[in-house]
């Protein structure tokens, strides 16, 4: 069952260095705060003309950069969780996961969310649970709709799905298609 998916599988380093989806997912922004002066990098902070970014400055950094500057060994910046993974949004997902448009919010909601587990942040346990429960709650409807939509336009069924869910939907559709072709002797 899905509950056994080991969290340890999700590490910040990608499953596949060459994976295009992973590269795009890791450019999602993370609210960060500078902990040590960043000299000669003032251009990274649009709100200042200074060449140095002072400690305390808040920035939105892409995950690939934040994960390199905020490690257990070295905290040049500290990070906070993006609002779509914070408590208020997790409550919405818990209330009725099926109504949430994860494509608009994502489109790599689960993949990016799993990467957030890389950080040493008090909320990551709740985020991990929320990702799993959200996926499980939505899974049944994805499977049912992908198994019953034959030879019809499926846009309305997939428009709110995140990229991982679209892969599941596509796999279900392929299974259905193969079965139909087997039944008709093809």
């Amino acid at each position, binding site marked *: 069952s899905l509950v056994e998916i080991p969290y340890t599988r999700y590490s910040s380093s990608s499953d596949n*260095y*060459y*994976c*295009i*989806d992973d*590269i*795009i997912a890791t*450019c999602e922004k993370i609210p960060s705060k500078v902990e*040590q*002066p*960043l*000299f*000669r*990098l003032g251009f*990274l902070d649009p709100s200042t003309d200074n060449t140095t970014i002072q400690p305390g400055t808040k920035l939105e950094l*892409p995950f*690939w*950069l934040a994960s*390199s*500057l905020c490690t257990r060994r*070295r905290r*040049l910046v500290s990070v906070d969780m993006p609002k779509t993974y914070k408590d208020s949004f997790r409550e919405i997902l818990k209330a009725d996961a099926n109504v949430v448009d994860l494509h608009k919010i994502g489109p790599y909601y689960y993949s990016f969310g799993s990467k957030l587990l890389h950080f040493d942040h008090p909320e990551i346990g709740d985020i991990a649970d929320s990702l799993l429960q959200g996926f499980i709650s939505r899974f049944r409807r994805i499977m049912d709709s992908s198994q019953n939509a034959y030879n019809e336009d499926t846009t309305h069924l997939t428009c709110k799905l995140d990229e991982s869910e679209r892969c599941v939907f596509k796999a279900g559709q392929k299974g259905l298609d193969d079965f139909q072709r087997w039944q008709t002797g093809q």
Partner: protein
Amino acid sequence: MFGEKALELIRELHRSTEGVLPPFNDEGIRQVLEEMRSLYEQNQADVSATVAGEQGLFSGVQLRHASLERDKRCLLAYLYNRLQKIRNMRWEFGSVLPADIKTNMSEQEVQWFTKYNKCLANYMRRLGDSGLDLTQDMQPPKS
């Protein structure tokens, strides 16, 4: 922000549909290599200044190094995934690719494709008694 040009190469490939090879983006690759050169030179300057006794430059060096690794990953992934598309087309269209695909391949990709063809042909020739064309019957024949 660093890495934007490199990400644009990846997005361009991500947008291309299955079975279509977008034109090789020479200019995009050149710009990313240019960014990497300037990041590297800035880091070398900061390291020399640190050796000369200046303080506090480490965080900038760390940030630029992460950007260099990111640019490198995007460039290699761009090339790698283009080759995956070309390889899939070999299995779909055979050893002579359609002209519209070939015009979008770089010279080095054509060289790669020629070598790949040769490797594949050598391998298939050794199968069974008189060789076996693996690219036929990709679906189990009815029999």
